[in-house]
């Protein structure tokens, strides 16, 4: 997974970095269009299009029946049973393409989230860095440092949570590396990207020890070394909301809505039954 992520991160950065100057909404819309085409393509070539068409017509027929016989309870119940049965076979028929599209889409969403899900920390505004630590590591109170970052106040250790916190004030805009130095001299790194205006850049709020789900959701950095006594480092990146019709909306909503809309719009012209 680490290797896959490293490749995906390179690929995503190669694709998305040149687009960072464009309005986020345009990039998200472009990605939605690409995803819609991918979904339709997979549907076209992996599903049983004929069977799908048949099931859809049967569902329509049963729905019509329900409307026609809505005063006959027995007919109504039977028609309802039909709808249910055909719906199940519809789900069954679309299962394969669904699974095939879900994997790359999830990977793509995780990459897009890193680029468009967060805004940078503001220079001059204090924030708290949190690390989940094992008891032994906390006893020696590791030190936090980073170029362009001022650590203000002592670290705090909360034994009941197994967490340490540091207050930092980012001073210099742009990317930097936070270094957590343990008493034994082990250095654990976490990438930090301070805002330059409202810039688009890869940001990851969490680096943790290896786990499948963790690597799926936070692919930007390799997992932490399990032996260092630090199990996770968190940064409080504010979430980025995109302006849509005067409202602030998370990019994922925009992306999902647009993907859905593109699929509906393009299925007829592309001759795909869904």
């Amino acid at each position, binding site marked *: 997974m680490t290797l896959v992520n490293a490749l995906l991160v390179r690929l995503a950065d190669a694709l998305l970095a040149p687009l960072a100057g464009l309005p986020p909404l345009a990039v998200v819309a472009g990605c939605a269009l690409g995803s819609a085409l991918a979904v339709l393509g997979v549907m076209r070539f992996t599903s049983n299009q004929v069977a799908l068409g048949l099931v859809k017509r049967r569902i329509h027929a049963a729905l019509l029946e329900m409307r026609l016989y809505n005063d006959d309870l027995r007919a109504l119940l039977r028609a309802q049973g039909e709808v249910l049965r055909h719906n199940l076979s519809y789900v069954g028929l679309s299962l394969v393409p669904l699974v095939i599209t879900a994997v790359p889409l999830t990977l793509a969403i995780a990459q897009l989230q890193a680029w468009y899900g967060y805004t940078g920390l503001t220079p001059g505004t204090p924030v708290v860095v949190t690390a989940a630590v094992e008891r032994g590591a906390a006893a020696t109170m590791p030190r936090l440092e980073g170029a362009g970052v001022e650590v203000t106040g*002592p670290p*705090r*250790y*909360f034994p009941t949570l197994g967490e340490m*916190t540091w207050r930092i004030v980012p001073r210099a805009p742009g990317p930097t590396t936070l270094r957590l130095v343990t008493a034994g001299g082990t250095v654990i790194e976490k990438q930090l990207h301070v805002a330059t205006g409202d810039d688009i850049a890869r940001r990851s709020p969490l680096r943790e020890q290896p786990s499948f789900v963790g690597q799926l959701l936070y692919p930007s950095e390799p997992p932490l070394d399990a032996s260092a006594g630090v199990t996770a480092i968190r940064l409080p990146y504010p*979430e980025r909301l995109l302006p849509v019709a005067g*409202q*602030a*909306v*998370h990019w994922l909503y925009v992306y999902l809505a647009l993907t859905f809309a593109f699929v509906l719009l393009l299925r007829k012209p592309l001759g795909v039954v869904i």
Partner: protein
Amino acid sequence: MTPLPARTRTAGAMLLAACAVALAAGCGGGAHVVAGQKVIVLGIDGFDHQLTRDLLAAGRLPNLARLAQQGGFTPLATSTPPLSPVAWSTFITGLDPGAHGIFDFIHREPDTLASFLSTSRTVPPGKILTLGPWQFPLSSGRVELLRGGEAFWEVLEARGIETTIVRMPANFPPSGKATRELSGMGTPDMLGTYGIFTLFSSKPDVFERRDVSGGVIQPIDVIDGVARGTIEGPPHPYRITPTPMAVEFAAHVDASGEAVLIVVGDETRVLEVGEWSSWVPVGLPLLPFQTLPGEVRFLLKSLTPYFELYVSPINLDPYAPALPISTPGYYAAELADAEGRFYTQGMPEDTRARNVEALTADELLAQARLTADETRRQFRYVLDQFRDGLLFYYFGHVDQVSHVMWRSLDPGHPAYTEADARYRAVIGDLYVEMDAVVGQAMAALGPNDLLVVMSDHGFAPWRRAVNVNSWLRDHGYLAVTDARAATAPGLAGVDWTKTRAYAVGLNGVYLNLQGRESKGIVPPAEASRLSAEIAAAMEGTVDPATNTPAITKAFVTAAAFAGRAYPRIEPDIVVGYARGTRVASDSALGIVGPDVFSDNREPWSGDHSMDPAHVPGVLFTSRPLKVPADRLQELAASILAEFGVTGFPKVRSTP
């Protein structure tokens, strides 16, 4: 795996709401015209005329001094009584209280004598479906603004001139008539009150939940390094037996015992002792997967020897307020997006927590600094967005801080101590800061534009307290059945068969009138003679401690107010206390105490609920007004005249 933060989840709902608003606006909105000028009105609550003159003379208010030179500076006569909701309603409508119907902070229901907030009321849903312990409203309830009369910005909007009205007092729920509006004083917290704080304390004398004025004291203990508590919200609307919706939090103490990490839902904050948290969004559980959004701030007061954590009243969430607080509905969210979350509660400075010593003077000042910073940051944003028409922007912290810090300017105060001397500069410094805000507004003016800086009333020391109910008893107008019972609030123990007058709120005295009060004994024909008799007796009252009059003017409202539109709630007499004297808090709550006069020993040591002649506000303008004003009630008409609009208010009520 982190779930999407609450703000994201509400974003979808906001999008839908925005579409609905956009559609509605498309149908209803009239076309805007360009007024060709900007008129900016800065309303600074409680900005005192005398103190302003002193600071001007000392050269500390350079921007206001420039204004005074360019346009003018005069005292601005306030309303009767000079209380903020009354005064601002008078400014908004150009009417006296008899015509706009706001006489005090608190009014009483004449038949039950139950008291209620004067400026707004919630109308419960009409039909309710009950199922076991649950109840479900079939129609939605709503809140209503009780202020009568037409707001002056409605007149401008009717002519197509854009208005932006930010934090106008006595404008909750927002009128809906301005182009942009955020409600101010009178906006409740989530409990529907002016603000209920919670103080969690491990002190041994706090062993059970205790209600104090303006707050709740809750016991809490640090067990194995964690203190767990529950912040109580309003009663669950779907439960028949009142059960508060509650938010749980855990405060984890750090290994050195100097900080805590507070966990509320998905949110965490690290607080050192003495530190205020940023806003923490909280969700009051309504249904599975549905919460009512609110926000709180925490203050870690101490960790040793006792754990003490102050939690602010639960404010309505500006991103998704459970009650309407802005026009259009998303304007509050726009302000929050631009400058961060903010106090939506009407009077955010927690002077009541200060008054019961739940906050120290320094803690209250730190909190007032937070509110002032929020409103000043927002002012810069609003000013930047403002292009044309009218902008009204309100600052409330000067008034609130003046109330609890005035003693520092008043060495003759009976409760003055050396400790007060430390704070002597505090109020003056706030005036100086407001002068800088005035400077920002001046910088935004073009050659055609006008800046008005005004206040609703001034300030005076509050040294001596009068229990008006006790005064009425001693003068034979009020009788008690049982002297002990009469020391409970709510006029308990009053013998209504022998009582001809009683007091509720800060300045109002009411006759026990037949046909209005349910146990009324005063025949309506007697009313005006009796009012005049009581007023005359009051004006002759001398405070034995100072040997000076305690009441300089008692207004018989039938004569003082031209408007008489609210006969059921209008007091019969409005008491104008001498400078330095005010009604005792006990009396305002309906307690008939043993003594009439007492020293005021509360931290609340400055006030303005006196004879209006003693507490004028200020009026500065950047150029002479076309129609000059020296009374608050005339000012709106003068502002409208700058836009060429005359004939406001439609119904005159000048006495």
